[in-house]
């Protein structure tokens, strides 16, 4: 949709600096929530033995995903170039329907609201929403 302004990038960087210490917890919670609230997303994880919140695969994968988000924050000035490899991974190997990026983004925002209610102001919310949308777009780049 819209590109990130300088203010957006500032908001994302400074908010990320505050929350990155809890990246693993955020990722795990967001992923667990997604599997509960949007059960159709479980179809991507039929190879996991345990899909419950707090389970080992959910925890591990939440960390992986959130590390990806942190990586994207560092590449915020050129997400398309910075996320090229990740895009190829999602396009050719994982083949995740890009509609699911929106779903996961929503759950990340909900978790940020529960964990950082005072810092997740409307201004930070809009910048993070835009950033995650731009991230999703960069991830979809190699799909077709």
């Amino acid at each position: 949709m819209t590109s990130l302004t300088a203010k957006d990038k500032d908001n994302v960087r400074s908010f990320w600096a505050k929350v990155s210490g809890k990246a693993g917890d955020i990722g795990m919670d967001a992923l667990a929530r997604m599997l509960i609230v949007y059960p159709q997303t479980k179809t991507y994880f039929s190879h996991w033995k345990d899909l419950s919140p707090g389970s080992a695969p959910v925890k591990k994968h939440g960390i992986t995903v959130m590390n990806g988000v942190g990586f994207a924050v560092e590449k915020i000035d050129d997400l398309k170039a910075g996320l090229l490899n990740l895009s190829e991974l999602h396009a050719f190997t994982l083949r995740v329907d890009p509609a699911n990026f929106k779903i996961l983004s929503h759950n990340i925002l909900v978790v940020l609201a529960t964990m950082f209610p005072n810092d997740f102001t409307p201004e930070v919310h809009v910048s993070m929403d835009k950033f995650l949308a731009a991230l999703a777009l960069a991830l979809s780049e190699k799909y077709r």
Partner: protein
Amino acid sequence: MVEWTDFERATIQDIFSKIDYDTVGPATLARCLVVYPWCQRYFGNFGNLYNAAAIKSNPMVAKHGTTILHGLDRAVKNMDDIKSTYAQLSELHSEKLHVDPDNFKLLTDCLTVVVAGQMGKDFTGEVQAAFQKFLAVVVSALGRQYH
């Protein structure tokens, strides 16, 4: 007809009995106008909406936020027939207010974020699922009379 589990019924009643309408309502509408600024098109006579600070301190936004949230009361009390409960409200939003029904989802997403912020850890995945299901039914009912 929508099927509700006991957990879902209890969760919805619980959430709405505990939230402070005068905090959550204004916070939700203000957040919606900041995060999805195109929604401001429906509030041309609300005065200063030029930036986040102005939106957050705008008394008309605050008052209307509370009004909207109380609009959900009837659905909370009539969970087994939200469709007919909101028939007139749906017509109002379509014929008089001309609100694009896609905006309903944007507002309920902001409500979810605000309630999540209020409830913190208590806003578990299961609670979120029940809350979002309720709001989805509300959104569907509000869009029903559009033609």
